């Protein structure tokens, strides 16, 4: 595999699946906006697992670091937290577009 690919070990994939399934369970009774946090956290965990698996992607590393720094704003600065959600989605979308352009 090259640095642009990564293979998730089953253990790492199972950890992420457990997190997603447990999140689905507790989202049924926790405040609705917690769901945004669970998805954001899951995105960070997936990014982290891919990087740990050897993916050479500094952009993804920065995104993961930003998510880690911003997700906890839910507890201290809700306005900034909710402002980060569309920013993160936009950055990911722009990255997808760039990837498409690079791929021709």
């Amino acid at each position, binding site marked *: 595999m090259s640095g642009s690919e990564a293979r998730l070990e089953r253990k790492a994939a*199972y*950890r992420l699946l*457990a*997190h997603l*399934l*447990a*999140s689905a*369970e*507790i989202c049924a009774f*926790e405040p609705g906006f*917690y769901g945004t946090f*669970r998805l954001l*956290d899951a995105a960070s965990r997936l990014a982290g697992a891919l990087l740990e698996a050897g993916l050479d992607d500094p952009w993804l590393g920065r995104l993961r670091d930003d998510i880690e720094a911003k997700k*906890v704003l839910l*507890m201290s600065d809700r306005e900034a937290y909710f402002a980060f959600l569309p920013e993160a989605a936009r950055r990911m979308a722009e990255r997808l577009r760039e990837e498409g352009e690079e791929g021709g």
Partner: protein
Amino acid sequence: MNAPPARPSPVEAGGLLELLRRRRVCRRFSSHPVDERRLRMVLEAGCWASSASNNRIHRLLLVRDRRRIDLVRAVSPGMLGLPTALVVICTDLDAAARAQVRVDRDTTTWIDVGTAAMNMMVEAEALGLGTCPTTSFSRGGVRAVLELPPPAVPEFVLQIGWPAGAEPPAGTGTLEPAPAGRRLRAFVYAERYGTPLA
């Protein structure tokens, strides 16, 4: 009527208030394990919490096994950090039945979980430890990974550890733990539900 004589207190009230003010949730832990002596002090604080009608229907399960902590974290989206110890507060349905407590209707049982948790968090703070309360977890998931028997209902997971960047005081590992007192033996389990603290 004369007022009862004031009881001497080993804790200065202002100091206690300051401790309560400064306590914060800890979400990043060091990998240094917490010594047995401190853990027992935290657990004993939980055991001395108020209990509705002194029913004592909750049990504290101490988990230090890294693999089991990792498994609990996998099914607990509220666990953002990786602590070196967990205390799982469980309702013991057998104890509840003996005390004729209707856990489905009696809200005092929830209050008792909270008082035990708060006692432990305050004691941990006094010992320099970090804690994070966790209620966002899959009940069935925690039951499964900790192999809890049917009467044990996990209600609350307290994450405990040294805060990231805080080194344990020198000589910490050599402290001899005090023998488990009556309350610790009665209400605390180690690693597996039903296994008393030695």
